[in-house]
C-alpha cells in the first residue's frame, strides 16, 4: 500500500483501490453471495395457501387469454356481432377480476424460511446424476489429457516453427465458429444415419448408436474443450529446454521414459491448469449434453439446474444445486493442485 502511494500518489492510489474493490465486489463476491443466499431459504405456505396462490395464477392466465381474444375482436371490422362479442368478453374479464380481488384478499404471503432444506431434498435420482456428471467430467478430462499431451508435445518440441503454426491455427480455427454449430456438426456426424455410420456401413459394419450410448457427449466435449487443455500444456512443454530431452536420450532413456521422467514432471503445472479448466467446463456444460443426447440418455447435472430454474420455477433449489456443483469443482481444483504438487502461484502463471 505504501509503495503504491509512493509510485502513484494518494489520489491515483485511492482510485486504483476503489476500482479493484468494485471489481472484486461486483464481479466476484456479489453474484456468488446472491446465489448462495438464494440457496439457503425457501417459501413456507400455510394450509391451502399454495392451492389458493395457484388458483389466482390460473385466473390471471385466463384474464390474459380473454384479453387477447378481446383485442383480436376489436381489431376486426366493426360489425354488430363483433361489438357484441367485445362487450361480452369485457364483462367476463371484469367478473374474473372481481373473483381475483376476492381471492387475493384471502391470500397470505408465504414465509421466507432459512434452512439447509434445499441441499437436503436432492433425491437419489438427482444425486446419481450429480455423481455421474462428476465421473463423466473426470473421464472427459482424462480423455482430453491423453489426446492433448501428444499434440502439445509435437507442436512445442518436434514440429518446425512453420508446421507448429499451422497445427495451432488448425486447432484455433474451429473456435471461431459458434459452439452450438460445432456441436450440431458433431451431431450430424455421429447421428444414427450420419456421416460416421455411413462410412462404417461402407466397410460393412452395422450402424452404432453413438448418441444413445452417450459416447457422443464425450466426443463433442473433448472436441469442444480441447484448446483449454492443449494451450496450458503447450506453454509449459515449450519452456522445457530441448537439450534436456536430448540429454536424457543420450543417457539411454527410451522415448516413454523421457516423457515419464522429464517432460511430464516439467509439464505438471500446465497439466493441472488444463485439467482444471477442462473439468470445470465439462461439468458446467449445458449445450453439449443437451444437443448430443436429446433425452436419449440421462441428463447432465446442469440440465437439472436449468430445469429447477426455468421449468419448475424453483430458484432456491436451483441455486442449491448450482452451489453444490461449484463446491465439487472447487474441491477438484484443490485435489488437482495436491496431486500435481503445484501452488496457486504456478497455476496462475
Amino acid at each position, binding site marked *: 500500500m505504501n509503495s503504491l502511494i509512493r509510485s502513484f500518489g494518494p489520489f491515483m492510489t485511492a482510485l486504483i483501490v476503489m476500482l479493484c474493490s468494485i471489481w472484486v465486489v461486483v464481479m466476484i463476491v456479489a453474484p456468488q453471495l446472491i446465489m448462495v443466499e438464494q440457496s439457503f431459504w425457501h417459501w413456507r405456505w400455510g394450509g391451502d395457501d399454495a392451492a389458493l396462490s395457484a388458483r389466482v395464477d390460473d385466473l390471471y392466465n385466463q384474464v390474459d387469454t380473454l384479453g387477447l381474444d378481446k383485442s383480436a375482436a376489436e381489431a376486426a371490422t366493426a360489425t354488430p356481432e363483433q361489438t357484441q362479442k367485445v362487450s361480452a368478453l369485457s364483462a367476463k374479464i371484469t367478473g374474473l377480476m372481481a373473483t381475483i380481488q376476492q381471492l387475493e384478499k384471502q391470500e397470505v404471503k408465504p414465509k421466507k424460511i432459512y434452512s439447509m432444506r434445499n441441499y437436503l431434498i436432492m433425491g437419489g435420482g438427482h444425486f446419481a446424476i450429480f455423481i455421474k456428471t462428476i465421473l463423466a467430467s473426470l473421464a472427459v478430462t482424462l480423455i482430453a489429457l491423453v489426446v492433448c499431451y501428444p499434440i502439445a508435445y509435437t507442436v512445442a518440441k518436434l514440429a518446425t516453427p512453420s508446421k507448429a503454426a499451422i497445427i495451432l491455427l488448425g486447432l484455433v480455427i474451429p473456435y471461431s465458429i459458434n459452439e452450438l454449430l460445432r456441436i450440431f456438426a458433431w451431431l450430424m456426424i455421429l447421428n444414427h444415419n450420419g456421416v460416421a455410420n455411413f462410412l462404417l456401413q461402407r466397410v460393412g459394419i452395422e450402424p452404432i448408436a453413438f448418441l444413445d450410448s452417450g459416447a457422443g457427449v464425450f466426443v463433442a466435449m473433448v472436441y469442444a474443450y480441447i484448446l483449454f487443455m492443449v494451450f496450458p500444456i503447450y506453454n509449459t512443454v515449450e519452456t522445457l529446454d530441448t*537439450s534436456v530431452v536430448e540429454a536424457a536420450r543420450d543417457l539411454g532413456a527410451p522415448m516413454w521414459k523421457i516423457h515419464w521422467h522429464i517432460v511430464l514432471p516439467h509439464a505438471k503445472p500446465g497439466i493441472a491448469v488444463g485439467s482444471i479448466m477442462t473439468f470445470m467446463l465439462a461439468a458446467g456444460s449445458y449445450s453439449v449434453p443437451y444437443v448430443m443426447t436429446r433425452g436419449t440418455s440421462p441428463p447432465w447435472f446442469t440440465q437439472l439446474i436449468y430445469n429447477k430454474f426455468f421449468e419448475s420455477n424453483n430458484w432456491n433449489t436451483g441455486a442449491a444445486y448450482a452451489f453444490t456443483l461449484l463446491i465439487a469443482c472447487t474441491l477438484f481444483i484443490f485435489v488437482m493442485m495436491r496431486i500435481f504438487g503445484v501452488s496457486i502461484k504456478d497455476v496462475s502463471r
Partner: protein
Amino acid sequence: MAMHGKDVVLENVSIKFGDFTAIHPTDLHIQAGEFFSILGPSGCGKTTILRTVSGFLETTTGRVLIGDEEMTGVGPHLRPTALIFQNLALFPLMKVWQNVAFGLEMHNWPKADRRQRAHELIDLVALSDQADKFPSELSGGQRQRVAVARALAVEPAVLLLDEPLSALDLKLRQHMRAELKRIQRKTGVTFIYITHDQGEALTMSDRIAVMKDGVIQQVDTGDRIYANPVTPFVASFVGESNILRGRVDEADNDFAVLSTPQGRFRGRNQGRLVRDTEAMLFVRPESMRISDPEAESENRFPVAFARRDLEGSFVNLFFEQNNEEFIVHLTNAGASGLDATSNAILSFSPEDGFVMAVGELADE
C-alpha cells in the same frame, strides 16, 4: 575408476542440411583414450560433427565407427557415447545425485547400486557435500562437474563435450581445464572436446583438429599446430601472427624469399611455393625482435611505434608500417625494449617465418 575408451573413426563423412553442406567429406581417426579437440570459429561445423558422433544426426555420406562398430542407424541412446551439452542440460527437477543416477536407472541398475555409484562419481568430481542439492542451488563450476559426473555414470567409451566451459568466468575456466584433464587421465575415456577457444584446445588436448567451413584444415598435436600451421587460417586462428604479404621472388624446398612493401624477407617455404606466387609470411609475435639499429642482418624492417599494452607477465608492443600492424611480445623477465615507446627496427630469424600461399585468415 578405470573405464575403457574406444576409437572413433569418421570415414568419408559428410553432412548436408538441404543445400547447405555443413561437413565436407571428412576422414578422421581419433585414438582410444585420447583427449581430442575440434577447434574452430562458430558455424564451422564442429558441433555438427559432435552431434553426428553422438547419434543425433545421421551422416549424408560415409559412416562413423566407434571401437570398430558401425554406428549407422544406431540411436543416441544406444551408442557408447555421452554428450555434455553447451548449456549442460541438467535435469532441473532432480537432485544432483538423481541427475547422476539417471543414466544408471535407464540402464536398469538396481536402486541401491545406482545410489552408491552416483555418489562415487560425485566424489570423483569433488562434489560430495552437494549431492542432495538441486542444480539451481549450485554455482556454475559445480553444475559443470555434475554434468561431467552424469555423463561418466553410464561408463561411456567416448565423452563428447560441446564447449562446456564457455559460460564460466576465466579463473573457473582455467580450474576446470585442469579438472577435465585430470578426469580424462583417470578414467581413460576418449574425450572429444569442441571449442572455439584455442587456449582451451592447446592446454588440454593430446591432438587438435582445426576446422573451418566444414573442412578440417589440420590435425596434429597442439605444439606442432602452433609451430607448423599448414594454412593461413590455422596460422591466424591458433595463436597470433604478424603477416607480411607479397610475391615469391626465390624459392627452394626449404626457404622462400618474399618481396613485400616492407622489404624482402626470407622464411620457411611451408607451402612448397614456386616463384611468382602471391604469398603470406607469418611470424609469431614472440619470434619478432626489436633489433639493434646498427646490426646488419636479413629480415629487417623499420616500423613506427603505435602503443604498448601491459598484460602482466608479458608486454605487447604494437607497431605500424604502411597501415599494417605488427605485434611484438616481450616477456617481463628482463628483456630489453620492454619500455619502448619509440620507432624501431623489427627483425626475425628465417626459421621463425612460414611462407604460405595467400588464403583466408581467421576473423577477416
